[in-house]
């Protein structure tokens, strides 16, 4: 018969973050089921969760309030009621990417499309070089182009792939809603400005681009187009709030795991950075600039019993640990 052991409190080195887009049109968050997925490989999260890497200074704060109901003379608490439900999460990303920057931004996040020649200056990117049409046979990792278009790209190019803007309003972008348009805009490249379907070109052949990682949106749909991008931009202001489902994992030293699952998180604060000294020798001078994310948890209704909840905390004990 095997032995057991009495496990002390988990010892964890760091926290890993995973995000998945909430379908804003159907208001459907992505749910994490720890009973089925509790042992997933941290380097290969189950779809549609996107690995955001290790994070720092992860802090959970419950601002939910309870109040007593007093009865009697003198009054004494009879029972409690939950008066409000509120929770916040904050942390710092250890890398700057399209996704981490967008998540740590309080408003919509945009791609800087490669500018057209002699285009007038614009703070969120000038009028763009015309998009090129993606040919059939493309996959999420290999984009087929006409030979005359492929020659305009080189290894190291960054690209955005999405449809032309055709006058739609409401949530724009799929599978991630990049913004909400209350009225029509005139820029035909608008969806490619806000799309999360971006990639890095590692190889160029006569008529195709080979990407470093698959496009988040998968194989390009018919009619989608491609444009080069030069970077990213976001703004302090605006009325759009991103909404994501989030999962945070603390891996314990004994193989135990703590999960914090927030079905709905929205950015709580505007874009903010945190400067951290590179090491103890660099109290000033060299600093690492971290993206600071601060989020407000929104409730979902748990179909199990109809209760409204903001977060699920689950624990997977170590093997043979006494429970």
């Amino acid at each position, binding site marked *: 018969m*095997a*032995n*057991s*052991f*009495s*496990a*002390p*409190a988990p*010892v964890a*080195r760091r926290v890993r973050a995973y995000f998945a887009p909430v379908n804003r049109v159907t208001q459907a968050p992505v749910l994490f089921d720890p009973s089925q997925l509790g042992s997933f490989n941290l380097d290969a999260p189950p779809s549609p969760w996107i690995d955001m890497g290790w994070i720092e200074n992860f802090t959970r704060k419950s601002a939910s309030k309870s109040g007593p109901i007093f009865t009697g003379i003198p009054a004494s608490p009879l029972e409690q009621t939950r008066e409000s439900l509120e929770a916040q999460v904050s942390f710092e990303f250890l890398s700057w990417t399209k996704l981490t920057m967008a998540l740590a931004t309080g408003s919509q996040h945009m791609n800087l499309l490669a500018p057209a020649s002699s285009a007038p200056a614009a703070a969120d990117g000038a009028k763009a070089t015309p998009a090129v049409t993606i040919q059939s046979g493309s996959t999420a990792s290999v984009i087929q182009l006409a030979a005359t278009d492929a020659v305009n790209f080189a290894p190291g190019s960054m690209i955005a792939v999405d449809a032309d803007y055709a006058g739609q309003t409401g949530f724009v972008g799929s599978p991630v809603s990049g913004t909400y348009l209350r009225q029509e805009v005139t820029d035909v490249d608008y969806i490619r400005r806000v799309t999360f379907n971006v990639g890095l070109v590692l190889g160029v052949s006569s008529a195709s681009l080979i990407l470093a990682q698959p496009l988040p949106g998968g194989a390009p749909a018919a009619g989608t187009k491609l444009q080069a991008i030069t970077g990213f931009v976001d703004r302090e202001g605006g009325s759009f709030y991103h909404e994501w489902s989030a999962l945070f994992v603390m891996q314990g*030293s*004994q*193989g135990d795991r703590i999960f914090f699952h927030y079905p709905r998180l929205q950015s709580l604060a505007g874009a903010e950075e945190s400067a951290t000294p590179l090491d103890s020798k660099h109290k000033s001078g060299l600093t690492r600039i971290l993206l600071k994310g601060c989020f407000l948890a929104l409730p979902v209704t748990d179909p199990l019993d109809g209760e409204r909840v903001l977060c699920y905390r689950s624990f997977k004990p*170590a*093997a*043979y*640990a006494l429970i």
Partner: protein
Amino acid sequence: MQNAKDSFYLALRTRLATINPERTVLLRGALRPGILVEEAEAPTAQPPADVFVLRWLGLGVDMDLSSTMTAEECEILYSTCGTQAFGGLDRGRMLSAMDEEVVAMLQPFYTPKFNYSVQPAVAMQTQLFWDEPTFAPINVQRDRLSRSVKVMLYSYQEQGE
């Protein structure tokens, strides 16, 4: 505590055999991966070059937990004079290679605990784990470059230990 020390050494030895199978040491007639435990070998005036040597230092015990936790400090020493083929002029590169190997050996920062005092070794219930390595500056003695790395190894005492 000995199980944790043995498990740490065997984990690093197994990892080294994968990371750099060329790094070996001939010890008591047996060719083994180039890592040894100082206290388990005959005393020498100077540790062998191009080999990792584990030296056990401090010890701490936390008995307030539901399972007693021990913290054992391990120093990993290594040195090189470079290769004869290059007249020792590659000793800096050889030390850098050992730096990279020790970083790779220490990841992941945990390994299962085994009882190696019995044959075959018996898997125990817990894992040992350690902190990030702290590298000491290079020590130069004539044509010999040396460095040491310290890690703190943590483990829980199990029944029968």
